[in-house]
């Protein structure tokens, strides 16, 4: 594996992790924009724009784009999150230039009114689809409660009303502001020809214009005086779905990896404290804890799905389990979790498509490169005491926000 970096005069960063053993090359544009960069009148615009990018440019129709990707045998897609919009394609190495040519053209979409009207229907369908599925909006609602007036409170999809009200001109303006050359990172991984990539990028992206720098970070106050709970009632649901958020280290914190290791000890899909206590015994369909980090905040997310009548007892039990962890973790459980994470890092490192996301997001957020050996070394150094320190500092049992979605009624939330 060899890391390469170059910056074009217009500020576009190009990073690559080159692996001669790989059979494919993965390329992606990582745009530093997402739900957190929106305001009420354009809620959902980042994600809608991600769809519109596939609808064509001044010289390409939507059909042209789909045809070209399929002709090159590309596995291409995109996603939008709170902080990022990512467009990517995995191709055979000989298609590297073709893929970059198409992806870079797409970064300058036409945003035609008639496409906008048609695609709006697709977005509204996507909102309805998620609304029919577990956790029935509990994740969005919980994030809104937890982050309050912080930009991370915003929904990625937006709402039916915000999407219906959105006009194409507002999206054009948003695109103009957010897709400037220095707000994008071009990342590549696998069997990449870096010299050729740079040459193509100069030719295809060299004319893009930079924008004035902006600060995306907003201080998030983690001390919250009250425990907030909300309920979304879905009478037809078989199970109750719970999302619970409490503060944790942000992505630039030294404890970021330790927080992830702690989450594996507490709430991994198997072999964790939540697993043995709640899932293995068949008390719940699912109980897990994860750590998510953002530019300026971090969060421990606990998810539970169970029979409605057991919800409150199990939520109390989860708090007891977190309290028990504060009384001390064993060396064995920490080592077991560490071994799992080490193995995941090694296996993910073999897949160019998986490495692309680590590479691109790390550079887009922190402007740095972390290799697989870097991640392994960091994990190896984390001690049991580090995890105890995080437990003491972030105090997981003190819940910030909890949302229940399922058959339970709202007056049951306080029991």
């Amino acid at each position, binding site marked *: 594996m060899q890391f390469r970096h170059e910056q074009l005069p217009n500020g576009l960063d190009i990073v690559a992790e080159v692996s001669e053993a790989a059979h494919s090359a993965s390329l992606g544009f990582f745009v530093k924009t997402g739900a957190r960069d929106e305001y009420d009148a354009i809620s959902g615009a980042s994600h809608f724009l991600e769809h519109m990018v596939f609808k064509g440019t001044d010289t390409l129709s939507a059909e042209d784009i789909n045809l070209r*990707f399929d002709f090159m*045998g590309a*596995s291409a897609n995109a996603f939008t999150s709170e902080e990022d919009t990512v467009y990517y394609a995995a191709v055979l190495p000989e298609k590297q230039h073709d893929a970059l040519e198409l992806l870079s053209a797409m970064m300058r979409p036409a945003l035609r009114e008639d496409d906008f009207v048609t695609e709006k*229907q697709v977005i509204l369908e996507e909102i309805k689809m998620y609304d029919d*599925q577990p956790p029935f909006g509990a994740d969005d609602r919980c994030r809104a409660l937890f982050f309050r007036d912080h930009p991370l409170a915003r929904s990625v999809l937006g709402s039916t009303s915000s999407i219906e009200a959105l006009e194409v001109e507002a999206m054009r303006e948003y695109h103009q502001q957010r897709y400037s050359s220095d707000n994008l990172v071009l990342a590549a991984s696998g069997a990449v020809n870096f010299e050729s990539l740079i040459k193509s990028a100069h030719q295809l992206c060299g004319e893009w214009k930079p924008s004035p720098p902006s600060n995306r970070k907003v201080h998030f106050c983690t001390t919250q005086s009250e425990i907030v709970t909300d309920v979304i009632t879905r009478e037809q649901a078989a199970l109750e779905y719970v999302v619970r958020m409490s503060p944790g280290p942000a992505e630039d914190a030294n404890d970021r990896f330790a927080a992830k290791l702690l989450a594996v000890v507490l709430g991994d899909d198997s072999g964790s404290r939540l697993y043995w206590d709640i899932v293995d015994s068949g008390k*719940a369909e699912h109980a897990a804890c994860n750590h998510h980090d953002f530019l300026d905040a971090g969060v421990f997310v606990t998810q539970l799905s169970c029979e409605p009548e057991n919800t409150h007892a199990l939520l109390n039990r989860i708090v007891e389990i977190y309290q028990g962890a504060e009384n001390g973790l064993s060396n064995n459980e920490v080592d077991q979790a560490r*071994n799992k994470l080490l*193995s995941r890092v090694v*296996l993910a490192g073999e897949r160019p498509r998986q490495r692309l996301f680590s590479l691109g997001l790390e550079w887009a957020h922190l402007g740095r490169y972390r290799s697989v050996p870097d991640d392994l070394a960091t994990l190896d150094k984390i001690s049991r005491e580090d995890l105890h320190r995080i437990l003491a500092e972030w105090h997981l049992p003190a819940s910030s926000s909890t949302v229940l979605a399922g058959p339970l009624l709202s007056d049951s939330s306080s029991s």
Partner: protein
Amino acid sequence: MKQTLQTATLDNGIILLGEFLPGVESVSVSFHVAAGSLCDSLSTRGSGRSCCGLATLAGELMLRGAGERDSKQLVAALDNAGVQWSQSVSMSHGSFAGAMVSRQLPDSLKIYADILRRPLLDQTQFDPARQVVLQNLAGTEDDPTHRTMLALRKAHYPSPWGLPCEGTSADVAELSHTDVKNFVTTFIQPQDMIISVAGRLDWPEFVKQIEGLFSNWQGQLPNPISVGDRGDKICHVPYDSQQTHIALAWDVPPYRDPDSLQATAALAVLGGGSSSRLFTEVREKRGLCYSVSAGYQTQRDLAAAMAYSGTTADRAQETLDVMLHEIAALPGTITEDELDRVKARAKSGLVMQQESTAARAGAMARQWFHLGRIRTLAEDLERLDGLSVESIEDWLAKNPLKEITTVFLGRDPLEVPDAVSP
């Protein structure tokens, strides 16, 4: 690309498949026992009892302690060896798989031998195991797409192929510890078991160790399954949701039939990739839905094409009409460009599979199950190159679509035209 494929057969019928993949540190191994959900009905043949979910429950209980290790010790041993393990049940197989750094392979093979040959099937673990299966079934109740596809399989396939692999709550609630013990004794057998391994691998050492762990295991599978009836051709599942879910199925040749190549290529033109006809006509041009696709599902002796879309109730009829129109319009209209795209996508997929040890181990096992051999990448690519528009059109002309099974899940049923021809 030079490829190193290996096969071996033990005296007791266990098949070993291996591929050395250069440039990786990991290895993936998977064990496929002929104890899939099709065996649910066999285990109570003649008793009149339905045991849908028995194979799933057996898989769950087998992981709860084996050999010298109890449930917790077993998971700890796999986790500490950095094995990313999984267990699953399909119609034909119960499967146990693990991906790991290659030096851990010898120790983890011993653990898998314990799971397959010496599961504790601890009485005290039975109730929690059954609870876990019941909880998972309750969870699938809330997934409208999953429910739609279950209803489609039930309507389209003859019994027992149409029954859900994961079981039904009513049947699982009635299963006993003795049922599971009998199932494991009867169906977890070396005969027809496939062990597939891919990655950084010392093949002779692997074969030697597997022989040591499995060669003294003897046993035969019971008689095969008899085919039952199919369900209704049109089925509406009432469900209070914003979207109506539409699922369609029709018969196509199974993977081992040489014609399956033509059938799957036609299906890819219809619903694979973002330039496919369904994606273009239903989503891109009309904005009728977020998801629409068509795919291929094969068992050894029967297979189905399945198409799906989910859309708002008031646009569901138009979505169904467009889907049926595109299916009917396919014969006689496939272009060279469409076939080129299908080939390009398939080739990329085959090459990229070489980058994942787990994907390779799984793919080899599937190919052996269907064909009784594994094809090299070069062979697979050559078959793709041999495909022509004429060969696909010829197959479509000789095999006109006779009947489509149609399932809707949502508030209201939709109208299905009598004939499927345009």
